[in-house]
């Protein structure tokens, strides 16, 4: 067995670009899924009953489906249903955003609900509207519990971007496997792929640990 690790170096440009796409995909998904998650959480908590039910159904649906299935569904079914012809990247982004929005909504809802009812009572007894109470009293306290979970969701999202490779989106997993197919250097490319994910993911995981320690809630 002769190994040629030079293959990795030769294709460094493609790999760097692909890594960029992975990072971009992660950031873009969160940029969409954070505000959308807040909106869905608000709908679940405070909207009119039928809307609440819809929001709950949405969250429960995406919590209970494998993401890879959502990716396939977005790729094959969404164009037929909506008539839109989105690029693989946009489709992948849609699938990821739908999924992460649901998780974020749950995170925000749980975080807000974890704040004692008395705090809301005290704020409203002063004459605050619900919106004011949320903004000035509940959310600042809930953010301590919400932030660590969001950080954890971020890292999961980063790893999940690898799933859109099944739709030939040129992120890291897809590109690395393409190079493997072209060069037949299986062990080298797959190990390099794992190593790059590790190099990016490990510090993120450690950062999440730090955030969880820093924001640990002691009641």
């Amino acid at each position, binding site marked *: 067995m002769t190994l040629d690790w030079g293959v990795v170096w030769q294709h460094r440009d493609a790999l760097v670009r692909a890594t960029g796409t992975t990072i971009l995909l992660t950031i873009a998904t969160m940029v969409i899924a954070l505000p959308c998650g807040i909106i869905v959480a608000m709908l679940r908590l405070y909207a009119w009953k039928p809307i609440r039910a819809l929001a709950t159904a949405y969250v429960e649906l995406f919590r209970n489906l494998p993401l890879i299935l959502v990716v396939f569904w977005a790729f094959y079914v969404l164009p037929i249903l909506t008539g839109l012809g989105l690029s693989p990247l946009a489709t992948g982004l849609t699938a990821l955003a739908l999924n992460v929005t649901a998780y974020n909504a749950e995170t925000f809802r749980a975080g807000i609900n974890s704040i004692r009812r008395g705090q809301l009572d005290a704020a409203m007894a002063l004459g605050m509207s619900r919106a004011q109470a949320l903004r000035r009293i509940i959310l600042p306290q809930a953010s301590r519990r919400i932030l660590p979970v969001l950080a954890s969701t971020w890292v999961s999202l980063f790893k999940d971007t690898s799933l859109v490779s099944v739709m030939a989106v040129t992120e890291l997993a897809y590109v690395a496997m393409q190079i493997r197919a072209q060069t037949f250097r*299986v062990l080298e490319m797959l190990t390099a792929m794992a190593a790059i994910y590790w190099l*990016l993911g490990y510090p993120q995981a450690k950062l999440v640990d730090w955030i969880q320690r820093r924001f640990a809630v002691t009641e």
Partner: protein
Amino acid sequence: MDFDFTVITSHARFLGSGIVVTLLLSILSGLSSLAVGFVVALARLYGPRGLKPLVVLYIDSMRAIPVLVVLVWTFFALPIVTGITMPPFWAALIGLTVHLAAYVAEIVRSGVESVRPGQTRAAMALGMSRAQAVRRIVMPQALVRMLPAFGSLLSITIKDTAIASVIAVGELMRQSETLAGQSFQPIEVFSFAMLVYFLMLFPVTRGVDALYRRVAHLGRS
């Protein structure tokens, strides 16, 4: 747009075998990752000093690397290193076990650490050995706290089996993908797949939510 769900019924066997493989892979990798994870956690908590950094490296690495990458590496690259070729199902089983065991180890560790150290001291003051104290006093209390997290992990395990489709394991995702491509009826086929996965996962997620509520009042013992 009209839907023709006969594509599902006429391929019932094909899809059914996918469901069986999904269940089999979920249960087997769940059990094996539990076993391996427990051992790893015990090694970290009570094993020799030198082992601890290696275990931590393993656990943190699994948090950093996607499941897809682990499965692909196990199926394509491991045979090159070991010289042993293995069928996709076994590669998936090994890959999932290695990945999930890290999470099991973390759950066990935090479960055990959530039991007040005073409990161990009290047990040993009664004359128990450390092993007895862990087995009879610490573990039972820790297990209750671990249950919701394990439930969560079961849900994740079932979802991760779908990723095994990438290495050609004939579980439900793979079968659906194949059938959808052949029949040109992705809506019907994927809807069916979504329904099945939802029916499998919903009770687990519900159960976990209920467990978390039950355990919430425990806090630190």
